[in-house]
């Protein structure tokens, strides 16, 4: 059959299948075919090739899945306690100057481990048994990796942790993509026994950051033939800094389960940046910190991390304080977390001002001040919602309070010149607490019924404009309104309310009646 003949045959068949036209010549539309729903892949699995799996093994697997899916229950309530205990143990090692620990480490390493434990506690929050088990593993292994890296510079365990984290994050991304392509539905709508620990974008960011950090560590290992922090090669330094920034940005943007990786990432990146030339690093880091403050004002952790990297080359103690502030600002989870940078700024000023003119130091001071002012300006709207930290964030918040109030005791940072800061912070905290207590007591006296003016009688429409409840003003308020007083535009009674949002409380204001009030 030639091609035109085949086409004619197809047209003929379609004509036969089409419904008859009515008397007006309109041909009714054929009924729509029922849309086939796409089935998930496991339903497409051919029946002739079932997976050979013994019944007992399958039952065991299902039991494990069911156990992992079970609600965490008591484990969830025990989680903050367990995190606090682990954090406290690492803090004790820090205060003891290193000492015996599961891994050989120094006070600096133990401090990094304490911060990691606090952030894992704050960020994990297990809801199911599987989560709790994974969280417990993270609570043990991640601090040890951070301690080894920050203390003795041995990054083997950290490389293993980063590998596992990158694979897990990539699995989350891949699984979400597979589900989306297979079922045509949004991944968020689909449950599964593998709980998605973070969103796909966050997982992609975490995977990218971990891969970059891992590449830096592997490159350094290839260069010096042992696991060490990247310090010499420019490529390693760039990879480490980029990886730390990606991880920190991912964590700052809401991926709570990535919080535990941030201290280790900052340790690696600060060590890498310390080997670079101070002035270019200070300029680049300072500019980036100000930009981050402008574009992510409600997430100050990224800006603080950039300031820490900027200070790493010339001012290592300041970098340690600022990196601690960046990590703990994640747990504060509020723009007020930017205040954690004050000890670092004070240490920087104490180091720069007595020494006289120091180009890098002045640049860093200017960048820090500018970033702080930008953050203050962008967060000036106090009507924005404030987050209330969860109980699991308590260890991190305690560490944050310790950093702000007594940074001079953080000897592992080797920061000097903070004695005056500690004294002033104690004085300020004491007086501030006293005033807060007085402020809690004083408004009760002001809000007694005698202090609030009586409402006017309901039959007086043009009532009052009295700023205070003095007897003379009350008498004046009860007088009938003069004839030339402007009449409100809205018909009906005038509703008089106490405008409690007005700074001059107690003022009577006229308001149009709400809908339905007659």
């Amino acid at each position: 059959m030639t091609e035109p003949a085949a086409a004619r045959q197809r047209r003929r068949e379609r004509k036969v299948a089409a419904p008859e036209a009515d008397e007006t010549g309109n041909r009714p539309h054929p009924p729509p075919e029922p849309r086939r729903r796409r089935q998930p892949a496991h339903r497409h699995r051919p029946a002739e090739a079932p997976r050979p799996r013994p019944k007992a093994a399958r039952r065991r697997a299902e039991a494990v899945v069911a156990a992992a899916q079970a609600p965490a229950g008591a484990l969830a309530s025990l989680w903050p306690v367990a995190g606090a205990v682990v954090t406290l143990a690492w803090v004790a090692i820090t205060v003891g100057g290193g000492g015996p620990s599961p891994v050989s480490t120094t006070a600096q390493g133990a401090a990094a481990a304490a911060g990691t434990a606090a952030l894992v506690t704050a960020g994990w929050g297990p809801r199911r048994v599987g989560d709790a088990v994974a969280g417990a593993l993270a609570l043990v292994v991640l601090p040890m990796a951070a301690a080894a890296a920050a203390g003795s510079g041995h990054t083997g365990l950290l490389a293993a942790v980063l590998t596992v984290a990158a694979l897990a994050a990539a699995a989350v991304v891949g699984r979400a993509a597979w589900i989306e392509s297979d079922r045509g539905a949004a991944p968020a709508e689909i449950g599964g026994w593998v709980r998605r620990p973070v969103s796909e974008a966050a997982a992609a960011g975490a995977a990218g950051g971990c891969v970059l950090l891992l590449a830096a560590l592997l490159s350094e290992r290839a260069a010096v033939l042992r696991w060490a922090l990247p310090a010499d090669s420019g490529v390693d330094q760039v990879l480490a800094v980029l990886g730390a920034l990606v991880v920190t940005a991912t964590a700052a943007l809401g991926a709570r389960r990535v919080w535990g990786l941030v201290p280790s990432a900052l340790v690696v990146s600060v060590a890498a940046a310390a080997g670079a030339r101070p002035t270019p690093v200070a300029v680049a880091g300072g500019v980036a910190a100000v930009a981050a403050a402008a574009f992510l004002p409600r997430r100050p952790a990224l800006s603080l991390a950039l300031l820490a990297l900027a200070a790493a080359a010339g001012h290592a103690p300041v970098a340690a304080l600022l990196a601690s502030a960046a990590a703990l600002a994640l747990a504060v989870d509020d723009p007020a977390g930017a205040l954690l940078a004050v000890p670092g700024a004070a240490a920087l000023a104490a180091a720069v001002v007595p020494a006289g003119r120091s180009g890098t130091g002045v640049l860093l001071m200017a960048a820090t001040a500018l970033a702080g002012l930008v953050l203050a300006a962008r967060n000036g709207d106090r009507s924005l919602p404030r987050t209330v930290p969860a109980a699991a964030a308590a260890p991190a918040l305690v560490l944050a309070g310790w950093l702000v109030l007594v940074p001079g005791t953080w000897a592992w940072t080797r920061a000097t010149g903070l004695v005056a800061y500690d004294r002033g912070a104690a004085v300020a905290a004491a007086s501030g607490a006293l005033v807060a207590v007085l402020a809690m007591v004083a408004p009760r006296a002001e809000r007694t019924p005698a202090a609030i003016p009586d409402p006017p009688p309901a039959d007086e429409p043009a009532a009052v404009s009295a700023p205070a409840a003095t007897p003379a003003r009350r008498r004046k308020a009860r007088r009938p309104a003069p004839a030339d007083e402007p009449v409100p535009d809205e018909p009906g009674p005038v509703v008089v309310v106490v405008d409690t949002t007005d700074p001059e409380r107690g003022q009577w204001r006229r308001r149009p009646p709400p809908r339905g009030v007659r």
Partner: protein
Amino acid sequence: MAPAAAATMAVTASGEIVLLAVLLGAAAGDVLAAAAALAALVAVAVRWGSTSLDAVAGAQAVLGPGLVAGSAAAAASTWGAAGALLLACPGGWSALAFGATAGLVVAGPAPGGAPDLAVRVAGALVGVGLAALAGRRLPRRPAAAAAAVLAVASLALAAVAR
């Protein structure tokens, strides 16, 4: 709380200049005024060579009150810093903090005896009075802008005097 904490630090001259600047900025409630307070206090630190308030008070006890001690540029820097602090004051209870800090800057020797104590108390009282007056009478935005300009000039003078 911030005004009370800052006022306590200034009156007792204990603490560190960056922390005091942050508290004054919080009390000011305005970014421009906060920037002015920060620049003024950094100028004080540069002028005396220390960020410790104890050190600033101690230096004044030895060398004389800030408003007369040192070179002309140094004294002018002190005057400028104090003026910036007064202009940055938003009024209300914050006048205590800004005024006490201005008093500490210009006349805040560590009290080694009755004369030093008298100078310091007088400086604090005059500072608080002037800050309250400035906060009440001056329009906020122009005053904050003037404070920022004055603070930057004070910082430049302190750097020159160094």
